[in-house]
């Protein structure tokens, strides 16, 4: 019997039909992956399933019963649990309060703290987490916060659990732990829907795969009977253009030389140089200081010290504005919080990048619109210039940030996890665009958790570990990087290479 059935679900937003008569069913005990390009409708479908959006038409059945979830709480009552892509904990609340939010054990005087904490500890322990549940949610790393979200969803015992890109901020080990948990839950009969970007993960975990394209269901495949290649073809509609794979390196002299970049308690002194047209990789586990380094480089954080030399000239960089004046711009890790003005339009967000160069000149809306149109075409952004950025899918939002960076005519773009939450098609477009820019002399600092992306793009890779530079590798493989990121078991051979490159 099917645990979940969707019939002819349709949902429109201003300007787009996000879902167009989608049929979809999930069996009990099945892990069903939902894949598609950005804007294919995966996230909208996940939102319909979790009560965040109500479909315009169509029917939703859970265990054969027709349901119409009005909001996430109502969806839960209907047996539809959710784990979202973005961590949705209350940052100031303790882990225990977050875990049992809305279901706190109550007495006549209020919340029974001891029981709350005991239940929270039990819920986390079941998930293999041993944490002080009284800590505020914001005090634990993003990866751990996501795990807590998942523990919370599992604690609700839903009939169907919908994961909207749950692995986006998880480390490899944590992904494996999540998958083990998912398999255990599947064995107990829980139906699970897994919205994902990584096909590798999809094939590792899913029983069946449903592909969406342009709001329609293209097909549903048995994972064992298909190949990643076939799925990608279904996602792209047959046109599978392979991204040009090439590593970018250069013998040109370094134009940017940063010494002793540091911030007390967050980043130990790091030296780094970047050459013209170079793609420099930066890797490290969550919490290793890579985001800190990215932000420090463009003056985004207070309390950062270091010596910047641009073209051999010592400069002072105290704010992103000053950094931009020397051509250093950042695409931050958290798109929605740090990256974009979600309430403004695509045109306005892109124009923001070009604004600094023309600060006293008269602006015309037409010039801004032309700028926006040009970048929309160049990056293949699926949006109109006057569309609000908040209404775009994750991949298109990332492209808007890139457009804003490029509009500033930078010399170095620092990309912190630019491909997180971006689909396969857009990812290869982004990669190709980055390579193109490098050819034209733009330098790139490329930060990613996906090591194969890093080694494909960058010849020279910096590895951070526990807030300090662990080393620098040239022409490394992903396993080299992984070893260095983990520390301990780096072979003498590797260390020598790392040192050699560092001393260059």
């Amino acid at each position, binding site marked *: 019997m099917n645990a979940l059935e969707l019939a002819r679900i349709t949902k429109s937003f201003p300007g787009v039909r996000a879902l167009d008569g989608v049929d979809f069913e999930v069996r009990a005990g099945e892990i069903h992956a939902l894949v598609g390009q950005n804007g294919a409708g995966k996230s909208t479908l996940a939102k319909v399933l979790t009560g965040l959006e109500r479909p315009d038409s169509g029917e939703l059945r859970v265990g054969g019963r027709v349901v119409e979830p009005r909001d996430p709480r109502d969806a839960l009552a209907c047996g539809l649990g959710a784990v979202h892509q973005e961590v949705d904990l209350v940052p100031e609340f303790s882990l225990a309060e977050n875990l049992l939010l809305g279901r706190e054990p109550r007495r006549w005087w209020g919340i029974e703290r001891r029981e709350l904490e005991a239940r929270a500890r039990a819920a986390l322990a079941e998930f293999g987490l041993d944490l002080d549940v009284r800590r505020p949610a914001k005090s634990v790393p993003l990866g751990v916060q996501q795990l807590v979200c998942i523990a919370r969803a599992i604690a609700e015992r839903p009939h169907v659990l919908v994961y909207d890109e749950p692995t986006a901020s998880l480390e490899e080990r944590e992904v494996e732990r999540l998958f083990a948990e998912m398999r255990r839950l599947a064995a107990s009969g829980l139906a699970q829907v897994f919205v994902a970007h990584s096909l590798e993960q999809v094939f590792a975990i899913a029983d069946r795969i449903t592909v969406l394209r342009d709001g329609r269901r293209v097909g549903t495949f048995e994972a064992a009977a298909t190949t990643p290649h076939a799925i990608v073809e279904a996602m792209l509609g047959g046109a599978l253009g392979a991204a040009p794979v090439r590593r970018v390196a250069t013998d040109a002299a370094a134009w940017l030389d940063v010494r002793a970049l540091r911030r007390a308690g967050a980043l130990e002194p790091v030296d780094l140089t970047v050459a013209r047209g170079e793609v420099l990789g930066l890797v490290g586990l969550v919490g290793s200081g890579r985001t800190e380094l990215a932000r420090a480089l463009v003056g985004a954080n207070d309390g950062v010290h270091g010596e910047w030399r641009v073209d051999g000239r010592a400069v002072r960089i105290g704010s992103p504005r000053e950094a931009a004046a020397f051509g250093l711009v950042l695409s931050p890790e958290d798109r929605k*919080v740090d990256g974009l003005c979600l309430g403004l339009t695509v045109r306005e967000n892109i124009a923001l990048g070009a604004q600094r160069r*023309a600060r006293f000149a008269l602006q015309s809306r037409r010039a801004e619109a032309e700028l926006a149109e040009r970048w929309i075409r160049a990056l293949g952004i699926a949006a109109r210039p006057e569309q609000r950025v908040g209404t775009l899918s994750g991949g298109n939002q990332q492209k808007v940030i890139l457009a804003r960076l490029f509009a500033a005519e930078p010399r170095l773009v620092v990309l912190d996890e630019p491909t997180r939450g971006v689909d396969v098609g857009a990812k290869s477009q982004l990669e190709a665009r980055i390579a193109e820019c490098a050819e034209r002399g733009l330098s790139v600092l490329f930060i990613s958790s996906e090591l194969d992306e890093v080694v494909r793009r960058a010849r020279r890779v910096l590895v951070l570990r526990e807030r300090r530079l662990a080393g620098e590798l040239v022409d490394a493989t992903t396993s080299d990087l992984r070893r260095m990121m983990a520390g301990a078991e780096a072979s003498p051979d590797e260390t020598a290479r790392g040192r050699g490159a560092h001393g260059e």
Partner: protein
Amino acid sequence: MASERFRAKLASYTPLFVLIGAWLLAAVATPHFAELEWRDGRLVGATFDVCVRAVPVMLVALGLTLVIAGGGIDLSVGSVVAFAGVGAALASGDGGSAFAAFGAALACGVLVGAVNGGLVVGLGLAPIVATLATMIVVRGVAQLCAGGVIVPIDRSALVATLGAKPLGLPASLVLVAALFALFATLKRRFGFGLYLEASGDNPRAARLAGVPVGRVLFATYVACGGASALAGVVAASEIRAADAASAGLYLELDAILAVVIGGTPLSGGRARLLATLVGALVLQILATALLMHGLAPHVALFVKGAVVLLASALARPSWGRAIA
């Protein structure tokens, strides 16, 4: 698809529809409200009266629109009106020029605006707390400067200047038009508008994108102080005296209402200057019509509250869609 876009467009015109609706309602319900004639080289009639009387709120609300678009609020505007009025009165006494009066008033307003900006941007105080404090202090300072009396500005050059009627229009309306043109130009034709709306929408992202968020927000408080100072001069010249105790009292509330009716979200990120002027006119139509009806002031308060709720509800995108 096109109709969706049309609806969104339509929703943004809600304040204008509310204005037309309010005027029609007032005209139908109130005898003589719609009458407008040219007498002795100037316009006479309730509609015209509404425009003139709305001037102080319009001036203040224009400045406040910028502050609110940046995600802030300024409660000190009413006190600035009083302070600037006293400044103008003192400077224009003993045959001082209108220029000196405006200069003194603007200096008062810009000073308070700079203090507000410093407290909010420099010290990081919550705007509502910082400007609540300056609201109280500035009224005290105004009364101190006035020496506890009402300062007359009769027979000064200021009254003559603001009493002038270029093209048959009162000078105060020209002042509103000029300030609107200045702010609108800053917003549309220079990067300031984009910087302001980005800062209000998401200050963290704006800062990373290279926007000088602090300077932009500081400028909005200074501009708001200046705009309120102009309102103070107009208010004082109307009654030919600067009353530090009661000038501009509760004006901040009317100005906030005007901004809200105009559809500028209090959460920041959008500045709707023209719609703010429309909002101020809606409020004044109500006040004038109710006055002409001879309604008791407490009844008038009920009507005003109801209209504000209705107008701000209509300005919500979802409602706009529901009625369109």
